[in-house]
């Protein structure tokens, strides 16, 4: 079996440093809430609907209490009080919070304990809804065959959810194991979740509950037809991370892109905001058994993939530590990395294999997400197809778990039906033809691949030492990741962060934290 030398002591030190970095983040997270977190909680308690101009009911309610300076107590505080005042159910209580003539300033009776007690039954119902979706998924999956790793992951991106459903079914019939519906690029910066089916999206569709259902229905049909479970992926990222995670958890999604670091670096979302949002989103994700995909692979689209490979590894250690603190099991952590080196660099394939194998060995229980070349793709579709085949070869030799297939038309347009078909056909060939190659070969001791792996781990350790010394907040500020700098209070969404009061109430989160 081909392995690279791994200094267990160094790996342990990396994990130790990542734990300290994550603890520092967690201390901040535990003292704060956000408008996004509070909206997610209200959704979980049954809030529904929009007001037209004012946006979703949850936005109206949360913005109202935020403006009144009351959000530090948590929306549950006021939800519990509304229930005690006689609201029929949580949904009606939330409508009171949004639209009642007077705002509840939370003064006087009842006691905090009474408020918490009033939420016991609704909290159980909110959890039961997530658990039921999980059981339904598990039962359905149990009847069908599972894909073989590396799982073949493709995207659909027509901008019309009904066209996406057609493309998703076509992809399933061509052998796709996972279908991701690309989200409209603008959504990451929307501080509300749109409603309904998208038919006119730009650069993708919105992540809405209805769109989730349309695709789940299509993939359930395809799964039945082919006797093989086809997974659904969307994006729990941007300013509505937690709300989307909750939606996905009740609509039986299988995977979510979920990575605060990605939002901070590539969408300029405020780091305080998104790290708090991420924590709560991952609590929903942990409960529902969804697999997260993290976005470290993107660092290599802006930074040099050869020189900055260690930043990806360092970030994977940090993401693992953060995910563990949100209750995720390692089997739910699809840590990301990518095949993004300049293909014309001599021995680039060896360096890619070294990185892939190193990642595989360090994160051996994790469903590693392996991303195809994009940055060095040109309009030469014929070379591009070969480039992707080499990526497939590296993926199967190093047994990556989730492989996002390269598209030969990457630099040109959204994948056409035939582009996806040919990508799947080529990958089936390479994976099949080389299925056990990794078991048959060994990497030369002291060879290029072994030495590269040793070097990247060493550099990742050095970077983690620095990041721990200066804290993640400062490290991001000086451009340690992806060569992009972000300030602690800069970026979008910082105004939506609130310090928790001593009387902060959130029984749902407390229950999720019990695991």
């Amino acid at each position, binding site marked *: 079996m081909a392995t690279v030398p791994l200094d267990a002591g160094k790996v342990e030190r990396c994990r130790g440093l990542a734990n300290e970095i994550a603890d520092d983040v967690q201390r901040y997270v535990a003292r704060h809430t956000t408008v996004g977190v509070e909206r997610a909680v209200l959704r979980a308690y049954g809030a529904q609907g929009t007001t037209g101009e004012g946006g979703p009911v949850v936005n109206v309610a949360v913005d109202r209490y935020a403006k009144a300076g009351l959000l530090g107590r948590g929306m549950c505080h006021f939800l519990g009080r509304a229930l005690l005042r006689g609201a029929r159910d949580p949904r009606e209580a939330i409508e009171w919070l949004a639209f009642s003539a007077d705002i509840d300033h939370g003064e006087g009776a009842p006691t905090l304990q009474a408020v918490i007690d009033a939420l016991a039954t609704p909290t159980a119902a909110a959890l039961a809804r997530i658990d039921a979706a999980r059981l339904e998924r598990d039962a359905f999956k149990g009847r069908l065959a599972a894909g073989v790793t590396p799982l073949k992951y493709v995207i659909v991106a027509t*901008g019309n959810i009904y066209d996406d459903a057609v493309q998703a*079914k*076509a992809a399933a*019939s*061509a052998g796709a194991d996972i279908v991701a519906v690309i989200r*409209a*690029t*603008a959504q*990451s*910066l929307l501080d509300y979740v749109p409603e309904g089916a998208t038919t006119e*999206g*730009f*650069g993708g569709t919105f992540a809405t509950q209805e769109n989730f259902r349309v695709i789940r229905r299509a993939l359930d049909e395809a799964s039945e037809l082919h006797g093989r479970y086809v997974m659904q992926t969307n994006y729990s990222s941007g300013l509505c991370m937690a709300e989307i995670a909750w939606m996905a958890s009740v609509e039986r999604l299988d995977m979510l892109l979920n990575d605060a670091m990605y939002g901070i670096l*590539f*969408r*300029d979302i405020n780091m305080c905001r998104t790290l708090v949002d991420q924590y709560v989103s991952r609590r929903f994700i942990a409960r529902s058994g969804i697999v997260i995909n993290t976005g470290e692979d993107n660092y290599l*689209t*802006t*930074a*040099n993939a050869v020189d900055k490979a260690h930043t990806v590894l360092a970030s994977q250690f940090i993401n693992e530590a953060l995910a563990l603190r949100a209750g995720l099991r390692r089997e739910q952590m699809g840590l990301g990395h990518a095949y993004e080196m300049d293909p014309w660099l001599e021995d680039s394939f060896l360096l890619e294999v070294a990185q892939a194998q190193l990642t595989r060995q360090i994160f051996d229980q994790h469903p590693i997400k392996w991303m195809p070349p994009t*940055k060095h793709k*040109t*309009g030469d579709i014929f070379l591009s197809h070969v480039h992707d085949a080499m990526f497939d070869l590296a993926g199967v030799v190093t047994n990556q778990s989730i492989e996002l297939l390269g598209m030969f038309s990457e*630099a*040109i*347009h*959204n994948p*056409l*039906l*035939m582009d996806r*078909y*040919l990508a799947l056909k080529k990958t089936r060939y390479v994976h099949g033809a080389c299925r056990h190659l990794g078991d048959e070969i060994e990497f030369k001791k002291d060879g290029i691949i072994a030495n590269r792996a040793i070097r990247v781990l060493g550099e990742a350790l050095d970077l983690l030492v620095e990041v721990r010394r200066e804290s993640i907040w400062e490290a991001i500020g000086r451009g340690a990741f992806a*060569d992009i700098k972000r300030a602690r209070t800069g970026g979008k969404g910082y105004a939506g962060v609130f310090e928790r009061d001593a009387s902060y109430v959130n029984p749902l989160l407390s229950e999720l934290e019990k695991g």
Partner: protein
Amino acid sequence: MLPSPTGKLLRAYGDRADDGMVQMAFVLALAPSARAREAAKRFAEMHGLSEPIVATMEACADGHSFFVVYGHSRHGIDPTAIDVAELRTEALTRDVVEHRIRARMGRRVVVVGACTGSDAHTVGIDAILNFKGYAGDKGLESYKGFEVYNLGAQVENDALAEQARAAHADAILVSQVITQRNCHRENAHAFALLLERQGWRREVVLLLGGPRVDHALALELGFDAGFGPGTRPSDVASYLVERLCPDVAAPTPPVSPG
């Protein structure tokens, strides 16, 4: 196919000159069958291919076939009869760029760039502006002569105009990557109109870049120049220098209409 009086018609070159050989790949919503094969063949013939060979027909989805067809294209093209708006900027060396700016401007050239509208893809603007550049060609930030403000992604037209004004921009770079239903065109055109309306369009050089952008499109949308796929930072640097600090001997490039 009438012979042109001005030049020789070019046909596609396959194995031998003028054989017109091309291939097409496409999908038809038909399951593979003899009828589907004949449909693909006729479809190719309608595109001007003679003796089409359906090299591949296979099911690529339920009720859909993927075809690869080879054939001899009947068409020929006379390149001398074509008039295209082309950016004719000589690539200048880094030293020349720096020297010209120093000598003719006597200050740094201020460049403000952004990916506008809902577009979140900064890959293009980053490749041109950021220090690291693209394909070994360092970005504008790496020149002493440029003062660069990269505003990143999802910048609204109003905000870009405001910030460019505040920075006293000599040039504004607009990047449009997302092209669904031509939203890149509308958005870019709206920006040029906005500057017109605000009355300072003529005070800046306006550049448009993106995978579906070419110089002709940029002119049509009210920009001064367009840069498509494969553009290197030094191409943009050279253009800006030619435009803003021309060599005295050379005539100033004409201001484009729009």
